[in-house]
């Protein structure tokens, strides 16, 4: 009797069912259209779009990018086309695929978060919301959404009331106790947490003595942040009962598997898309062949199975 080897990559995030655990990280995949030339979007676990706000945002002045060893700093400043334009011009493209669309969004006040969530909740073709409370490139004061547990609880619970879609809360790594922030999000009604957003960093040109970014500081991403991200995912996994979505420096299947072993239910590829626009699909293939060669039937058996 032929015992055909299979690998089950399906995962759930709240009500949301994914065919595999590999998603795109917000802000690194645009609204999907630019990447459809390189990969089959149908193959992705989910597409997470660039962070959106109620009204379009200009973002920060250039230069916005500085390369650092095995990583990059960015200070885009959440430039985006606004929700209305997204719905009209970008969502129809994404709707043609059999891949769930997760809309990443943010606001400048609790009221704005709430209004945005309410609006998005009513739109067909949006399968989940990821609320960004953790951008390091916003004006001083904004960071309290992701760093002050009281404010985090408030904003997440208010948004929760507005939507029955799967609600993912994207956490900031720029805190002392990430597990605490994750528990606050869970208590406030989040269906999942995602982490890490970028780590606040800075780079200086030694000849001009000026910061390399016009914004002075920016968010560090890419392979350089991976160990920090893996540690934070592991800490959150241990203290939560909701799923954790892991990201930070994933460029290969091995990286993704490391996050899953640390407890991630799903993973997202960010800076990796810039290094290789086919990264996401290569990672899906790689996870599958790892499972087949290791005799792992379901991805769920890998989750959190780091032996400590």
């Amino acid at each position, binding site marked *: 009797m032929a015992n055909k080897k299979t690998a089950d990559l399906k995962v759930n995030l709240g009500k949301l069912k994914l065919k595999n655990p590999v998603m795109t990280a917000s*802000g*690194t*995949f*645009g609204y999907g259209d*630019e*990447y459809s*030339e*390189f990969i089959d979007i149908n193959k992705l676990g989910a597409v997470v779009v*660039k962070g959106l706000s109620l009204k379009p945002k*200009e*973002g920060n*002045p*250039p*230069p*916005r*990018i*500085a*390369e650092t*060893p*095995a*990583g*990059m700093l*960015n200070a*885009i400043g959440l*430039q985006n086309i606004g929700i209305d334009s997204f719905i009209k011009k970008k969502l129809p493209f994404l709707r043609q695929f059999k891949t769930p669309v997760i809309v990443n969004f943010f606001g400048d006040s609790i009221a704005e978060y709430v209004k945005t969530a309410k609006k998005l909740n009513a739109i067909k073709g949006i399968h989940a919301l990821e609320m960004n409370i953790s951008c390091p490139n916003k004006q001083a004061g904004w960071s309290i959404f992701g760093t002050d547990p009281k404010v985090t609880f408030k904003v997440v619970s208010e948004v929760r009331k507005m939507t029955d879609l799967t609600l993912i809360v994207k956490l900031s790594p720029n805190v002392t106790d990430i597990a605490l922030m994750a528990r606050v999000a869970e208590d406030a009604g989040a269906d999942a947490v995602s982490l890490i957003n970028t780590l606040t960093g800075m780079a200086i040109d030694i000849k001009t003595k000026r910061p390399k970014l016009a914004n002075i500081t920016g968010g560090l991403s*890419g*392979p350089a942040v991976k160990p920090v991200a893996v540690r934070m995912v592991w800490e959150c996994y241990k203290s939560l009962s909701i799923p954790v979505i892991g990201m930070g420096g994933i460029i290969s299947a091995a990286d993704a598997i490391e996050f899953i072993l640390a407890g991630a239910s799903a993973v997202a590829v960010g*800076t990796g*898309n*810039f*290094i*290789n*626009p*086919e990264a996401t699909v290569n990672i899906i293939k790689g996870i599958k062949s790892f499972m087949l060669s290791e005799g792992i039937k379901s991805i769920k058996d890998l989750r959190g199975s780091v032996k400590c």
Partner: protein
Amino acid sequence: MSRLFKASVSENKELIKNHYLLTLNPLKKIKKPEPGQFFMLSVDKGLDPLLKRPLSIHRLTGGNLQFLYRVVGSGTNILSEKKTGDILELIGPLGKGFPFKKTQKNIILVAGGLGIAPIFALAETLAKIPPPAPPVLLFQGARTEDEVLCIDKLKSIGIDPIISTDNGTLGEKGNIVSVLKKYLTRHSLPVNRYILYACGPEPMLKSLSSLAIKHKLKGYIALEQHMACGLGTCLGCVVNTIDGYKRVCKEGPVFPIEKIVW
């Protein structure tokens, strides 16, 4: 058609100190690049440098891609060590090139330093337009005589550039924009019959743009900005224009000269 492809190094020749001419043989059929468009080149498989490097198309020779580059940092340094037969990964052609197809006008090209890389591509393409091809005038600036690149190639397509060098070792001493300025006033050119295409260091483009605005000379310039994706997704490569921030990799690298806010 996916614009991601591998190419083998046919030649990587040092022309003068720190300046190289790289010839690549794409391993699959690629889209034909237009002058002013660029490619993202991955110089190494490792994690540092991490990002691909943008380089303008310099020349197409029998299906091969040529790039002209200067070594300025770690990425271009690694690139300079590539040997014949090495394989590189590229994405491209990317961005919008110089719009020149319908132009009936006399053409002024201005290149500063490595700006000659895309400007030569444009000059060569213009030279292939069947007669009556628009007349082309090229102003080329460089730091020193050595760094005045492509002279022979330009001669072979019938272009004799007006040259300036910072130290006066070749052509006029000084910057190329002031040479152009003198030329414009001396010849009192009917500017509405002329169109400008330029590429070079930012200070040059900035002074060129005020000259162009002053003389009501229309034209296009190719800009540079640090890039991560090259595809329009990261929003990292913007420049400020009168219509707001625009992506150099997508709406550019070529912009109408009067649109840029310096």
